[in-house]
């Protein structure tokens, strides 16, 4: 049984082979991701042969290599994968709900709310107070700003276009306050804030991974139960309702998942939400229609994007450790434009 059964009715050869192809693709992406994680573990300011990495992972020992691999690289790599997957799924949900390919977690105020809260935290407490509270405050900021966007956009229900307009307006206002706070805070705090805004996995620790994981474990299964509802809503609200979808309830559940995923990702890794825009697009070009297929593919691609962006940031400009956000946008944006250009050529040609 698959969740996409309603989109892909059984008993048809072409559909069966398509399904096998998509499964094969997901398996391939999963393998590529695992291999990339392995590669990433061997690279850094202190290159480590793969054998030593395996040895360090497999046996408990107190050595420099073991510390580098187990406490510095591995949590950072795992967090990159989780953050990328979360942002990609959050973006796929929003693009589906809003029925606009340009939607991303930015448009409903998730990123700007998290950014404002994080920068306010840094401005208030400086870099001195426990930095571990920064993700908590960023997550609260994301949830509160999204709630505010929802309340302002609510008009006997939620219409996607109104939600986006209110979201963009509120994001702009919060962006202004964020900039103001950075300008008036001291240099050290401003620098930390700036790196955070760009999006960085620098100094990620296991406790960050543990903070991120529950959100994914809660939201992704819930999203999968709504996958068929999402496919029905892609036909328009009235058709979906005619098919028996409780449109308002489904939309709220999916939105809540999206906010939780993107909010947590932004809280732990900062402004990387561009992943939420491009990963679902790349996934949609690889797999067939149907949200139950799109979601896993988008998650794997999002994970790969953030993993490689962070790897580049770590090793490309040694000894500098650059924020992953630079590469997510720097490499992702041209690639995105190329994808759009290519689709246009294909559909017109």
């Amino acid at each position: 049984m698959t969740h996409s059964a309603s989109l892909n009715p059984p008993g048809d050869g072409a559909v069966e082979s398509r399904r096998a192809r998509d499964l094969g693709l997901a398996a391939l992406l999963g393998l590529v991701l695992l291999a990339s994680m392995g590669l990433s573990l061997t690279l850094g300011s202190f290159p480590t042969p793969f054998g030593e990495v395996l040895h360090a992972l497999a046996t408990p020992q107190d050595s420099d290599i073991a510390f580098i691999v187990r406490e510095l690289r591995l949590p950072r790599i795992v967090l990159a994968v989780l953050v990328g997957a979360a942002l990609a799924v959050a973006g796929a949900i929003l693009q589906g709900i809003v029925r606009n390919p340009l939607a991303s977690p930015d448009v409903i105020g998730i990123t700007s709310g998290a950014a404002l809260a994080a920068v306010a935290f840094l401005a208030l407490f400086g870099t001195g107070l426990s930095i571990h509270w920064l993700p908590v405050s960023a997550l609260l900021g994301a949830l509160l700003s999204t709630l505010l966007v929802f309340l302002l956009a609510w008009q006997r229900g939620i219409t996607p276009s109104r939600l986006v307009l209110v979201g963009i307006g509120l994001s702009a206002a919060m962006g202004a306050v964020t900039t103001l706070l950075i300008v008036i805070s001291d240099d050290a705090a401003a620098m930390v804030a700036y790196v955070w805004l760009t999006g960085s996995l620098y100094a990620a620790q296991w406790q960050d991974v543990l903070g991120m994981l529950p959100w994914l474990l809660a939201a992704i299964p819930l999203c999968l139960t709504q996958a068929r509802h999402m496919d029905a809503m892609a036909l328009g609200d009235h058709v979906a309702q005619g098919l028996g979808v409780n449109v308002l309830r489904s939309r709220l559940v999916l939105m809540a998942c999206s906010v939780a995923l993107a909010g947590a990702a932004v809280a732990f890794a900062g402004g990387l939400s561009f992943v939420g825009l491009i990963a679902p697009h790349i996934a949609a070009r690889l797999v067939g229609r149907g949200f139950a297929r799109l979601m896993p593919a988008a998650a794997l691609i999002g994970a790969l994007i953030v993993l490689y962006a962070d790897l580049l940031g770590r090793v490309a400009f040694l000894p500098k450790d650059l924020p992953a956000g630079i590469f997510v946008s720097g490499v992702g944006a041209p690639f995105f434009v190329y994808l759009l250009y290519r689709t246009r050529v294909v559909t017109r040609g």
Partner: protein
Amino acid sequence: MPSIPATPPRLTGEALCAGYDARRVLDGVDLAVAEGKLTVLLGPNGSGKSTLLKTLARTLTPSAGRVCLDGQDIHRRNTREVARRLGILPQGPSAPEGLTVRQLVGMGRFPHQRLWRQDAAQDARAIREAMAYADVTDLADRDVDALSGGQRQRCWIAMVLAQETDLILLDEPTTFLDLKVQVDLLDLLSRLAHEHGRTLLLVLHDLNLAAAYADRLVMMRDGRIVTSGTPEAVFTADNLKRVFDLDAHVIRDPHGQALVCVPARSGRGPSATAPAHDARVAI
């Protein structure tokens, strides 16, 4: 009610008032949708026919009155349970890019499926039958958005058919289509009612097509039902004037039984122009 339906109606609206924001569009409408018949809602733009259809389809919640499906308030029922009895096709639906015909028709099975319980064989049969009935089997693997308007509309109708509901509500299913395509679609829909016992309620714009295909006509103006009944009873010049403010003659198609309305051009009636035309031909 001018005529008593043979079987008691399953879908009824009682004293319905509805509208958008402050504007009231429906003003106390009572309607019982006749079982196993094709009923057409007719009326000028803004008369409330689409609003009535949407209210009966539970898309709009009435501000007063209630819609009953099988004796229960439709707005209080589980929407998925309603969807197993009542199918709707809104006006001008649009399919997302890249969706194939088979996938679209398959969406009609949504109310019959559960995450943990799906009858694949039953679904496959319903989809196959719906596609065959709407004559879209040959298009099954094509993208919906690449088809012509008429083909696309047949695909949407196939989706509603795959839902396997006894009641089907369609909002302007033939608008913007060629006349031949409109006739084919209405043939298909009337066979559904007459050969398969489905109950259909349609909003149509074309008076003559409505008169030709409807078992019952419901004529609306300013949010109220002005008159309703068989075309024989209500498709009259008087009613067209009352409902549409249209000066027209109603004549009978000499080759069939259908009633046809011929608009009278303002200023000169058809009887005044015809002899002049004939005279010119004679010269």
